[in-house]
């Protein structure tokens, strides 16, 4: 079901705003730089048919405060999906922990359809985190795990618990334990500083993998979740496409020809990049072997062809203005005749394809500006999901359920995320500058 979201002001007035300041949590994360910028996530509109779930604070027998608020992290994750509505803390009628037998009747009266309980225990330097998920009406244990985690992976354990709840209840793989890449722009003195950053999908733990005084563009995750391709203008005469290993910190210039070197996108097998090059005259799509740099030209039109993405191993979807304005086209990844696939309006560009190849998200230009639209390749259905005026750079979550995109709120560059049905919207902003060009990571485990 498609429902439009309101303007930001209206949404705030509706009292549905849940704001989470996340900067403090970064402090105990080892390896983050001293000046970690605060990323703030705001849930600006919740789902209407969300499933009520009671998430009880996890038990902790150690002294002092527990090392992480696992229940809080799980609750935030599930709420952000729009599919769940965690009970308010004051509505939790009991505090059972792992191993307790829940009083299902009471939880049913409290309105919970599902119940998640758990406990954290210290195990030497590390921790054990365990949880049980119950179906309240059936009074049945659905799932339970025991995680051995370190201080660094406590949050990941929480995200994996959220993934498990999501999959048990909805039958769809969760994408909470994934990452996003984005470009931030901060002003230091009179100069701009561009950073290619990686953060957890909830905005936590942002880390710059590349810092440059000149523009960085179009980050693209390899299927391994380790290599990232991007465009850098560090040489003022010529752009270049680099592939960087985020773990090693090593980078390799893949191509830098005269004219455009842009819009990299990884093939599903991780061996090739679709790119835009213009050294042969005007912008066309090429497929490039990452290992040896060999290129193969895919399109030859005299128009602008760019922004190719892989729908599957054999199919590319790209933007072309061969018919006048920019529209999306499909072409074989070995070349051949391209076929136009978008016909609504006169500006459709910058496609992202869901991992199963079913849905395409793209930038749709209309009288009121640029919004994120989607197109179902099987059913041919088109819909507009957002109502910003400068929304761009859509990128699907690896489970295809959310789309992250760049938007503008109050003159500031922020990121937005919208569910595939348009029913839940959230925004993510940086307190020290603008954020743009988000790219959601693949599943990596």
């Amino acid at each position, binding site marked *: 079901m498609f429902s439009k979201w309101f303007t930001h002001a209206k949404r705030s007035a509706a009292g549905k705003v849940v704001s989470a300041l996340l900067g403090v949590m970064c402090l105990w994360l080892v390896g983050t730089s001293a000046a970690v910028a605060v990323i703030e996530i705001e849930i600006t509109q919740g789902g209407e048919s969300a499933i009520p779930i009671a998430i009880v604070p996890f038990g902790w027998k150690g002294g002092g405060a527990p090392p992480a608020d696992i229940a809080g992290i799980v609750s935030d994750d599930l709420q952000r999906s729009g599919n769940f509505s965690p009970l308010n803390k004051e509505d939790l009628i009991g505090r059972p922990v*792992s191993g307790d037998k829940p009083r299902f009747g009471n939880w049913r009266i409290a309105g919970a359809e599902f119940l998640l309980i758990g406990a954290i225990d210290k195990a030497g330097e590390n921790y054990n985190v365990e949880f*049980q998920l119950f179906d309240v009406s059936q009074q049945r244990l*659905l799932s*339970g795990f025991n*995680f051995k985690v370190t201080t660094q992976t406590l949050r990941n354990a929480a995200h994996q618990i959220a993934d498990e709840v999501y999959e048990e209840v909805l039958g769809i793989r969760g994408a909470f334990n994934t990452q996003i890449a984005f470009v931030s722009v901060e002003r230091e003195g009179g100069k701009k500083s561009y950073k290619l950053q990686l953060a957890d999908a909830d905005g936590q733990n942002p880390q710059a993998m590349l810092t440059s005084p000149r523009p960085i563009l179009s980050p693209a995750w390899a299927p391994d979740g380790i290599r990232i391709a991007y465009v850098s203008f560090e040489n*003022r*005469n010529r*752009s270049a496409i680099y592939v960087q290993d985020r773990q090693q910190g090593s980078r390799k210039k893949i191509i830098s020809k005269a004219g455009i070197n842009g819009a990299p996108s990884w093939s599903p097998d991780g061996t090739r990049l679709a790119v835009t090059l213009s050294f042969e005259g*005007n912008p066309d799509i090429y497929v490039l072997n990452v290992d040896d740099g060999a290129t193969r030209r895919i399109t030859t039109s005299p128009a602008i062809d760019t922004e190719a993405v892989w729908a599957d191993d054999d199919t590319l979807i790209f933007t072309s203005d061969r018919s006048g304005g920019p529209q999306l086209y499909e072409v074989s990844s070995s070349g051949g005749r391209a076929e136009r696939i978008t016909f609504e309006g006169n500006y459709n560009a910058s496609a992202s394809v869901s991992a199963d190849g079913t849905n395409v998200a793209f930038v749709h230009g209309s009288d009121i500006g640029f919004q994120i639209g989607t197109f179902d390749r099987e059913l041919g259905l088109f819909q507009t999901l957002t109502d910003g005026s*400068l929304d761009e750079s859509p990128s699907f979550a690896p489970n295809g359920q959310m789309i992250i995109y760049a938007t503008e709120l109050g003159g500031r560059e922020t990121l937005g995320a919208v569910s595939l049905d348009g029913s839940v919207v959230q925004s993510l902003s940086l307190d020290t500058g603008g954020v743009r060009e988000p790219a959601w990571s693949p599943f990596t485990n």
Partner: protein
Amino acid sequence: MNKSISIGAVVVLSSMLVACGSNPKQTTTQTATASGATVNPVTIDGVDDGTQIDPDSIAGRAPKERVIFFDFNKSEIRPEYLEIITQHGRYLAQNPTGRARLEGHTDERGTREYNIALGEARAKSIARMLQLQGVSSAQLRSVSYGEELPVDEGHNEAAWSKNRRVNIIYEVEVEVQN
């Protein structure tokens, strides 16, 4: 991982739990993996921000009007700029060692990579006109920044009209190519 096995074990446990009301004893173990805890950062600095131009050099004496503006989503040259471009064409043709970089830019509307292509089309419109006047292609270099380097960061037509441009930048005569 061996998740299906784990879940199966839990289902058995759950029926035990309902049957005898005892505490569930977890036997399934899964180790949480850290997603992207390791990032090895790279910093680029010492980027050349342009060389000081000698005012008596070819670059220093070039025509002073060096910005050409465009209409939204267009790369055609507006008639009022023909005279300025002609001056540059004549000057470069008369000074064959002179070199110019044509930097194409767009406003923020539309997608970033499409705007890179649009900015290049603008730079190339100018390059074509210059070449018609006898400027050699070796004297010219086109580079597009799309919407990445606006001169005015406003979100209105007044700002956008300033950002849709090509900057003609004269370079020192000996350039290191890479």
